[in-house]
């Protein structure tokens, strides 16, 4: 099937983009197109206008700033996955990207696109939630920052006015003197590259005695937005991280309210959440302790 008719726009600057967004109705922005084009071609979505932002310069930079790792919205997922700054400061993002689509889609797909498309099971919004990322929005009323916890308004709907666009995000990366940071990411899908049913991301920072000083656990696929397991995080802080604690804390993942769809029962989702959390935390423990704890 082919897409139904639409008008194509090709702005060269962010100002042009904002002014187009403000003046047109029933619009979708085309970034990498790896989610949008299948929806258009299947006629699941049928916007009247498609705004191609691939020709706007300056939206694909990756830099360290005092606030954290800043990644432009148009940065291709493949670039993010291989970027030295990401591998050094936020390796869990690179690990999550292994699960995003396939190598061909990652060559075109963008991190900003995923953050605006907001599939409930998407990996990149999950990592943004893991880090409490800050999203940078631009519009005719000026730039504004949105905390990740305020970003998902509802199903597949980001906190964007009709005339605004996402320019990038900043991940406040973890670092602490004398502590060792470990990360993990696990996802369950029926086939590799499928949309995840449930994914779990974990970050822990351990002191010299193996005690958790800071923890972050985020789940994707259990609700319309990524969910932080705050109760589980609090249960980790102040304790030595070992497999027993991981087991106890992972069980908490099964107790949160799960969304339901035609294919997966909440109970099964809960079991998956528990298992993925356990694997992610185990990897985080291994990485934080240099593989000494297996």
């Amino acid at each position, binding site marked *: 099937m082919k897409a*139904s008719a639409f008008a194509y726009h090709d702005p060269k600057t962010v100002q042009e983009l904002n002014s187009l967004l403000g003046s047109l*109705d*029933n619009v*979708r922005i085309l970034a990498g197109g790896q989610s*949008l084009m299948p*929806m258009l071609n299947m*006629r*699941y*979505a*049928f*916007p009247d206008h498609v705004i191609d932002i691939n020709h706007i310069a300056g939206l694909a930079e990756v830099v360290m700033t005092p606030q954290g790792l800043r990644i432009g919205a148009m940065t291709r997922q493949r670039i993010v996955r291989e970027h030295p700054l990401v591998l050094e400061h936020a390796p869990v993002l690179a690990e999550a990207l292994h699960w995003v689509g396939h190598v061909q889609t990652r060559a075109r797909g963008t991190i900003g696109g995923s953050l605006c*498309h*907001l599939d409930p099971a998407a990996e990149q919004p999950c990592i943004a939630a893991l880090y409490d990322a800050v999203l940078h929005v631009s519009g005719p009323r000026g730039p504004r920052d949105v905390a990740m916890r305020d970003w998902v*308004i*509802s*199903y*597949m*709907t*980001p*906190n*964007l*006015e*009709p005339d605004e666009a996402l320019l990038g995000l900043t991940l406040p990366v973890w670092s602490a003197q004398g502590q060792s940071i470990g990360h993990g990411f696990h996802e369950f899908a029926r086939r590799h590259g499928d949309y995840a049913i449930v994914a779990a991301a974990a970050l822990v920072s351990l002191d010299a005695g193996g005690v958790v000083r800071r923890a972050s656990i985020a789940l994707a696929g259990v*609700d*319309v*937005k990524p969910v932080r397991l705050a109760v589980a995080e609090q249960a980790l802080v102040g304790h030595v991280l070992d497999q027993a604690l991981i087991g106890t804390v992972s069980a908490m993942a099964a107790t949160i*309210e799960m*969304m*339901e*769809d*035609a294919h997966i029962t909440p109970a099964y989702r809960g079991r998956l959440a528990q298992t993925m959390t356990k694997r992610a935390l185990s990897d985080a423990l291994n990485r934080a302790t240099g593989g000494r704890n297996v």
Partner: protein
Amino acid sequence: MKIDVSFSVPVPPQQAWPLLLDVPRIVPCLPGASLTADLGDNRYKGQATVKVGPVQLTFAGEAQITDIDDAAHTARVIAKGADAKGRGSASATADFALVAEGEGTLITVVTDLQLVGAVAQYGRAQGLIKEIASQIVEQFAANLRSDILARSQEGVSASSAATDRPTGDADVASMAPTAPVAPIRELSAFALLWGVIKSLFSRKNQSGQ
């Protein structure tokens, strides 16, 4: 598909009843809806636009109020609309009932919704449709409450407040706290909207459960 929603207004049933039957007045309170013609005999032509994520649907059609029981405060609305792009149609039969709730009124609506044609593909996400319906109804109730408040406070000058009511699309995104709304609605609507957004993530509040 069955959708159960309910909402409250701060006036007693004898006052709320004629208000709800005053279709030209309350349609602007419904996000994304507009009246195009009053055909008389409780029949109206109108349009409704709903936007969720990447999908935006516009239905144009007719609604008729029937089975009006002024004593029991119940009525039925039968609505049919075709998608503007020829992708199908939607039809709904909604049964309204008003009961006194303290000093106000609780309005319950039981709707039977059918989607036909290409738009029926969205009907598979029943849980989602029910939540969106709840959100729209909450927004409608909030607008209606503000309108009741405005009219009772401002008397004659309330007619100007009625004209700048937001009549844009029922864009779920515009229900964010930062969406621009008329000043008198901003304070009460902000609190109501935030409650709506939070309740979206609380399955316990899902209508009918």
